[in-house]
């Protein structure tokens, strides 16, 4: 065992591993030190100074997050000097912060506001600098609003964009009092390499970066008697929503969420998991077709590996950074957009509703979905397929506004027609889920047997490791797939765009031979999405993932091709996977974008 070192915190001795920061040691010992620029997902920056502490024998205060423990160190976290310094630091931050809290989207969930409240900043000893600066708000993006007047330059967004996502849309520019967080040539977030993933929004401690919300638009639609407002909910929402409404992380609130949506007045509450199952049918078939073309027909122009296309953040990333690889993307729309296209065609026909009167809303753990829904390609139903996209957070706001006591709600189930799903659809919300669902179905199509994993749980593709690999050897396939006999299907899963970049670089350089890769823009997959409750951190992501897999395990049907509504829609409407109608409604194209 490694040698442990002893330090005292406020007079109490505690033992820690070498290399532990004073901040972590204090938290282990039950001493809370306030932080602002610190985030568990990110490298230490030590720039906000809110976590200052006193170390015996040192004249200057030190930042607890950036100070490693040393043997015999005596740390004091609650001296008069520390408290006054912290208070001054918070006051200084506030002097450069537009503290109009009542009109701020993050009112009530702002880390700076909480610090000001904890330390009771009642006076203003420093000049308010906001009126002297000329701030503009960037709200051109359909997903993200950037308001520099609320920025405290902690650089969590910059580190998120660089470390977690390798996108680097945001940077620190200028210096001193002119320093600001901005994009290339201060362009709008809409005009740069930004993927709209929203991780910066999720990591921002204040209201400087927020999602563009469509709450009022949805309320207006709900109030319109001439409209049929239908809603779909993504798999990751049901394991995150509870956190905003009084439950601990990892609580599944599927039934309560459906009940709440019905109370909000939606005409029908449906499930994106249904189109997740549909995605598997389409994408699985696409994979098998490409394998057939490559291995049986011997065609060399077949683009393998096939990359998944469910994550709109990932789509925009590949369009910007690897435009030469767009042919590798599955042409399948994301489940949200498949749903949108079907609601205004299949559903409208079945329910005998004029599709022009349908308002299609989706609840997503994602800010990039807002951008995706606005893409010009996404109008195959003849209308805009998805009218409004709300994040998990926005739904929670609506539930609170409606005066619904979420904790007391009785569970309800999704409406039928596009409401039925399988466990395979549910696990779309976690990293590795699309891969697992696809393998469950594809293997069975090819061999007629279930995947050779206990209880259908393909554990190698689960978990929070950045890049996961799995191989399945196809043995004894059905006659029509005989050419796949003995073929080892190599799969990879990457989540977080930084990991996606690692995999894509390896693919580009020919270092790996994969057949199928699942990419998710956000760490942990959709359950760690940019639209999920704040905070999201490694521990919370793990709990949400456990909830997703528990939901899957509890489903009676766990393979997409078993979904009775999927079988029905192919029989009555779509024909067959990759058929003509599917092609028109469920598939899309991509465009090349610039890399800055």
């Amino acid at each position, binding site marked *: 065992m490694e040698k442990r070192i002893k330090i005292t915190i406020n007079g109490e001795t505690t033992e820690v591993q070498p290399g532990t920061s004073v901040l972590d040691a204090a938290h282990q010992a039950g001493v809370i030190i306030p932080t602002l620029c610190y985030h568990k997902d990110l490298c230490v920056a030590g720039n906000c100074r809110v976590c200052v502490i006193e170390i015996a024998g040192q004249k200057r205060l030190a930042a607890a997050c950036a100070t490693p423990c040393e043997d015999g160190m005596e740390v004091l976290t609650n001296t008069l000097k520390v408290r006054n310094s912290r208070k001054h630091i918070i006051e200084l931050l506030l002097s450069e912060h537009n503290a109009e809290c009542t009109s701020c989207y993050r009112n009530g969930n702002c880390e700076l506001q909480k610090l000001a409240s904890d330390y009771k900043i009642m006076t203003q000893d420093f000049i308010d600098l906001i009126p002297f600066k000329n701030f503009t708000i960037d709200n051109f993006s359909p997903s993200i609003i950037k308001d520099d007047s609320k920025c405290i330059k902690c650089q969590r967004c910059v580190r998120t964009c*660089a470390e977690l996502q390798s*996108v*680097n*849309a*945001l*940077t*620190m*520019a*200028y*210096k001193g009092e002119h320093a600001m967080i*901005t*994009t*290339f*040539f201060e362009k709008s977030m809409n005009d*740069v*390499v930004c993927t709209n993933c929203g991780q910066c929004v999720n990591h921002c401690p204040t209201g400087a970066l927020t999602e563009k919300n469509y709450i009022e638009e949805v309320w207006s639609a709900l109030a319109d008697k001439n409209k049929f407002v239908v809603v779909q909910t993504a798999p990751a929402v049901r394991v995150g929503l509870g956190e905003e409404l009084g439950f601990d992380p990892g609580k599944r609130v599927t039934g309560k969420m459906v009940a709440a949506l019905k109370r909000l007045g939606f005409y029908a509450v449906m499930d994106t998991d249904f189109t997740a199952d549909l995605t598997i049918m389409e994408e699985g078939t696409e994979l098998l077709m490409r394998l057939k073309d490559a291995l049986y027909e011997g065609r060399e122009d077949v683009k393998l590996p096939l990359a998944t296309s469910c994550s709109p953040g990932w789509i925009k990333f590949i369009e910007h950074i690897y435009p030469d690889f767009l042919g590798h993307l599955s042409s399948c729309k994301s489940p949200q957009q498949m749903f949108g296209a079907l609601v205004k065609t299949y559903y409208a026909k079945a329910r005998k509703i004029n599709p022009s009167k349908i308002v299609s809303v989706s609840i997503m753990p994602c800010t990039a979905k807002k951008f995706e829904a606005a893409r010009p390609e996404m109008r195959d139903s003849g209308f805009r397929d998805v009218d409004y996209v709300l994040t998990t957070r926005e739904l929670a706001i609506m539930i609170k506004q409606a005066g619904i006591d979420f904790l007391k709600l009785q569970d309800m189930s999704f409406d039928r027609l596009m409401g039925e799903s399988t466990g395979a659809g549910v696990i779309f919300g976690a990293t590795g889920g699309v891969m697992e669902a696809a393998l469950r179905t594809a293997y069975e199509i090819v061999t007629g047997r279930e995947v050779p994993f206990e209880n259908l749980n393909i554990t190698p593709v689960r978990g929070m490791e950045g890049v996961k690999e799995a191989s399945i050897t196809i043995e004894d396939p059905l006659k029509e797939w005989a050419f796949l006999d003995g073929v080892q299907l190599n799969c990879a899963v990457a989540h977080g765009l930084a990991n996606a970049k690692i995999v894509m670089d390896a693919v580009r350089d020919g270092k790996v031979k994969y057949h199928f890769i699942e990419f998710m823009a956000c760490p942990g997959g959709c359950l760690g999405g940019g639209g999920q409750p704040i905070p999201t951190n490694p521990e919370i992501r793990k709990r949400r993932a456990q909830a997703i897999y528990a939901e899957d395990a509890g489903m009676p049907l766990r393979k997409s091709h078993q979904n009775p509504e999927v079988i029905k829609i192919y029989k009555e409407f779509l024909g067959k996977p990759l058929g003509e109608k599917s092609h028109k409604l469920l598939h899309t194209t991509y465009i090349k974008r*610039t*890399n*800055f």
Partner: protein
Amino acid sequence: MEPISDLIRRLADRYGRERSSLLPILQGVVEQEKFLSEYSMTEIARELNLPAADVYGTATFYSFLEYKKMGRYIIRLCKTITCSMKGENQILLTIQDLLKIKVGETTPDGNFSLLQTNCLGFCHKAPAMLINNEVYNELTPEKVRDILTSYINSNGGGIKNVNNSST
């Protein structure tokens, strides 16, 4: 003049393609172009495989890396305390009057840009200014008029050593 993309490739060959090569390359482009255009920065980003935003962040951090279009001659007048006390404002007014531009502007013929700078280290010979890389100090309105006139008369060809023996 060398095309910018060629220049950047040549600079990268010379200084390397590491992150740490960025600054000398930025300086090299500014040397020729006087400023870093959007195009220069995306080309540098591509050549070094760096995010364009990082190139922009670096370029805006350093005072002598301009990122707006500049004239052939960039006048940088020192605005720090000593120069200010020794009549910097008179010099500024003279330059503005002669060139008909304000601080931050460029003459319509694209020859002169006027900027203010922090201390040039010539406090003992204040007030001081830079025109591109040439230092002019102990300035008086008459002297600065002579200097600028010589630049104008040389049709932008550049003239050095105008009463500048003390540097």
